[in-house]
């Protein structure tokens, strides 16, 4: 959600906070602000709005929060009274998914391109300007967070119907941007009884406003958000309107927002109101009455928050508060939140409101939970997992984590498959951890990593008698099959399933009763991301006396750039003491570099130029 500082001021004329501070404050009260930037002489903030705060998908809702935080007066635009005509617009609501709609007919519209301020506003919100009427509907949507729409009655006819696509009466719909959507049963549509004109969240090509449009039906509505969400998902179409209509919006804000829209369209297009105001609102919002102990914010937060602060904060947010009632040592009051805050339904919700405005920074950070233990409920299998990992590390094995999703099943009868997996080449959950290890070994071979010794502990999955079974499995690979067997004997785990250089042991099948509590080793070692194949180069060095191999290795290692040095070893020592010849063959492995650079480094290190 983009917010332009100067436009925020139309709701908060006294707002005078530096951009850095405003960014941080908006974040601290719950709307994470990634950054702000200066574009076209405007300061634009980029906010992540929480999914339960649909009200803040418009300037109005955010301004209400900031008014409380900075103790500023909230400026509600004053709209002149309209003179409505007596005729009702011809609108039929034939769907229970319409929670509230206001609509009006305007004639004599003088449409045009938008003025610069409006074009700039929309551009900064990454919305393409279309024409004045359409742009004003988008402007009001961004100000109040409630989508609205205009229909050209010359194209649609005078009568509009809100209906669900029962019995798939309508088969397809073409959007404003010329995309044809195949309609599904129950989709909420606006039609003229013959053709679909619009979905609840995107307009249609056959009803759109163009520069020559003169007569329009203007509407603003809030729908059953589940319906909008389903339609948006099924039709794979996401719009600024669908993002908002999926949230819990406030039907009581419609009169304010819609009247400002009418006012702006009249003002800029000289349109005439040609109908009465249509207002369909079958089930007005019932506000909850929340029993609230004003000391509760202190109880939950663990710090002392003055009662006066709590009650003032809730009042400033627009809540109605009953007088305080004392019952013995307890005090309580009834809090009725404003309709624009449907997220406030429980006393805990009110606590969050109080604490976020009081400031989380008041809560001390140096008083952690007491270390008094509660009963140990650690499952024994976890001790076995950790113990096994440490044993394998001590035997020289490296731990890897591999993909639990695989491309082919080992046994089709009991394989667990995924549905609608984006990574469609890997649709199955592994039935053996060896499947995953093989991919890792292949990868190491591509990287020319010699002699891998690796292991993994992870889950393997089966479907048996319509039940999903998962077990901890240990998979091990050694480049020497003989050594693999020798090493695994030391683990005392059975049975072991061998597959050439691979082995698997099901840890869940071990005698867990005999497993004791185990405190694993903490170690910090270096792991590297290989971006190129390893490069292995040998070098002979001849001396006239025996050398200390360790000193030799250290001495040559020092001559190599540590950023490309992987390993060094002596792979051969040839000696003829009678002739004072001692030849040492070194093998150096280089990483994350090119052949050319590695060779140059190598020749220099061993003075072979």
């Amino acid at each position, binding site marked *: 959600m983009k917010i332009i500082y100067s436009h925020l001021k139309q709701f908060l004329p006294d707002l005078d906070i530096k951009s850095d501070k405003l960014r941080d404050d908006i974040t601290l009260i719950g709307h994470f602000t*990634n950054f702000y930037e200066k574009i076209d002489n405007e300061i634009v903030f980029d906010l992540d709005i929480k999914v339960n705060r649909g009200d803040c998908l418009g300037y109005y809702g955010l301004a209400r929060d900031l008014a409380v935080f900075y103790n500023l007066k909230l400026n509600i635009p004053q709209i002149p009274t309209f003179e409505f005509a007596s005729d009702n617009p011809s609108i039929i609501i034939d769907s229970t998914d319409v929670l509230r709609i206001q609509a009006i007919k305007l004639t004599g519209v003088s449409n045009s391109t938008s003025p610069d301020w409006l074009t700039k506003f929309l551009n900064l919100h990454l919305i393409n300007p279309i024409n004045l009427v359409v742009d004003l509907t988008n402007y009001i949507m961004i100000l109040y967070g409630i989508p609205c729409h205009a229909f050209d009655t010359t194209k649609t006819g005078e009568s509009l119907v809100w209906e669900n696509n029962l019995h798939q009466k309508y088969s397809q719909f073409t959007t404003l941007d010329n995309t044809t959507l195949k309609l599904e049963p129950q989709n909420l549509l606006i039609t003229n009884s013959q053709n679909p004109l619009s979905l609840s969240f995107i307009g249609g090509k056959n009803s759109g406003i163009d520069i020559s449009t003169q007569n329009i039906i203007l509407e603003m509505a809030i729908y059953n958000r589940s319906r909008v969400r389903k339609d948006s998902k099924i039709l794979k179409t996401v719009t600024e309107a669908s993002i908002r209509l999926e949230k819990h919006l406030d039907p009581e804000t419609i009169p304010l927002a819609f009247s400002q829209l009418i006012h702006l369209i009249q003002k800029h297009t000289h349109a005439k109101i040609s109908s009465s105001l249509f207002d369909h609102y079958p089930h007005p919002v019932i506000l909850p009455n929340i029993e609230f102990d004003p000391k509760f914010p202190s109880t939950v937060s*663990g710090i002392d928050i003055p009662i006066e602060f709590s009650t003032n904060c809730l009042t400033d947010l627009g809540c109605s508060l009953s007088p305080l009632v004392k019952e013995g040592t307890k005090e309580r009051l009834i809090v009725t939140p404003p309709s624009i805050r449907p997220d406030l339904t429980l006393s805990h919700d009110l606590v969050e409101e109080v604490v976020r405005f009081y400031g989380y920074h008041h809560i001390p950070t140096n008083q952690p*939970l007491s270390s008094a233990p509660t009963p*140990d409920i650690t499952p024994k299998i976890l001790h076995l997992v950790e113990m096994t990992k440490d044993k394998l590390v001590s035997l020289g094995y490296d731990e890897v984590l591999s993909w639990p999703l695989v491309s082919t099943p080992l046994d089709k009868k009991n394989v667990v498959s995924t549905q609608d997996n984006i990574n469609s080449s890997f649709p199955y959950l592994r039935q053996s951890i060896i499947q995953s290890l093989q991919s890792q070994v292949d990868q190491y071979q591509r990287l020319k990593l010699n002699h891998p010794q690796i292991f993994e502990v992870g889950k393997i999955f089966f479907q048996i008698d319509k039940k999903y079974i998962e077990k901890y499995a240990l998979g091990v690979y050694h480049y020497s099959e003989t050594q693999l067997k020798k090493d695994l004997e030391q683990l005392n785990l059975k049975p072991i399933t061998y597959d050439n250089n691979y082995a698997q042991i099901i840890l869940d099948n071990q005698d867990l009763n005999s497993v004791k509590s185990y405190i694993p080793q903490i170690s910090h070692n270096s792991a*590297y991301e290989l971006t190129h194949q390893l490069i292995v180069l040998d070098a002979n060095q001849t001396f006239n006396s025996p050398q*200390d191999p*360790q000193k030799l290795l250290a001495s040559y290692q020092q001559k190599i750039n540590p950023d490309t040095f992987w390993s060094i070893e002596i792979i051969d020592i040839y000696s003829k003491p009678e002739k004072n010849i001692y030849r040492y063959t070194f093998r150096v492995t280089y990483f994350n570099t090119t052949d050319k650079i590695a060779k140059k480094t190598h020749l220099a290190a061993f003075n072979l130029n």
Partner: protein
Amino acid sequence: MYQLNQIVSLLTDKLEKIETIDQIEAIKVEYLGRKGIVNQLFSQINQVPSEKRQQHGQQLNQLKINIQNLIDLKSTTLKKSSKLTTTKKESLTRSLNKIGHLHPITQTERHLNKIFRNLGFSTYHGPEIETDEFCFQRLNVPQNHPARDMQDSIYIQKPDYLLRTQTSSIEARLLANHKPPFKVAFPGSVYRNEKVNRSNHFIFHQYQAVVVDKNVTMKDLIGTMDLMFKQLYGQDVTIRYRCKYYPEVEPGVGPDMLCFQCQGKGCPLCKHAGWIEMGGSGMIHPLVLKMAGIDPKIWTGFAFGMGLDRLTMAQKNIKDIRTLLGGNLAYKPNQL
């Protein structure tokens, strides 16, 4: 035609008996030479039925690698035993012995486990194939709740079974299976329906801690989180705590760490925010406790969770998230 397993078995026997480097060379020619056993097998591949040819080719490639590895291992052993008579054997041996390594994610998990063990926490686990009930509903996310959009799921069987999208499902199991008081912390891998590329993966790792007891407060939560961050990242780390939304907690708390790369100035790592989001937390929602049969008027608790992958990547200078799983992560052999 040779049986492939027999070839390896015969080679192993032969290698056990040989004593000199010259004998090794002869074996190498016999098996891997131009007219050796392996090449003969490759030349006979046309005799294999076409539908099995690809698989047979892969088996031969693996056989070749196995034979090379066995010969290399024997060669190294012989060189160590026969040629070090005039040098310090133990020094060379040290340069050749391999030490093992734990995966960086495991290292981080263990570090966190230790921190929480010192605070009296148990560890825990839960299934990776999870039900909608424990992954969402018991965490206060009913069907069609927009919060479900925060987590694209990989389903096993729609709509009831999926791969867990968050470690909070383990929390839901914990609450259902144990009576308070308890203090528990646990790592877990979680799944999202994301295309795998340099920046995204379908699997990643989270760590979560859950406490339910009498009189647990936000002060306990923030104090405990701060202790954890300081032990993980050092005493100088700067953390801020802010309001954040998660359906399973109320109030919600979001910890952010001052970006260690830019110190708050804004950089690509912190997406120019100056701060790095470190996960989510809050006081366990009373409805979540109620659904688990725990009376929220008596018991209160907190939960917090954090991702481990991005921070591990930053610590190890790993740029590609695919490196962590089945990728290009490798460990240097033992250092001098």
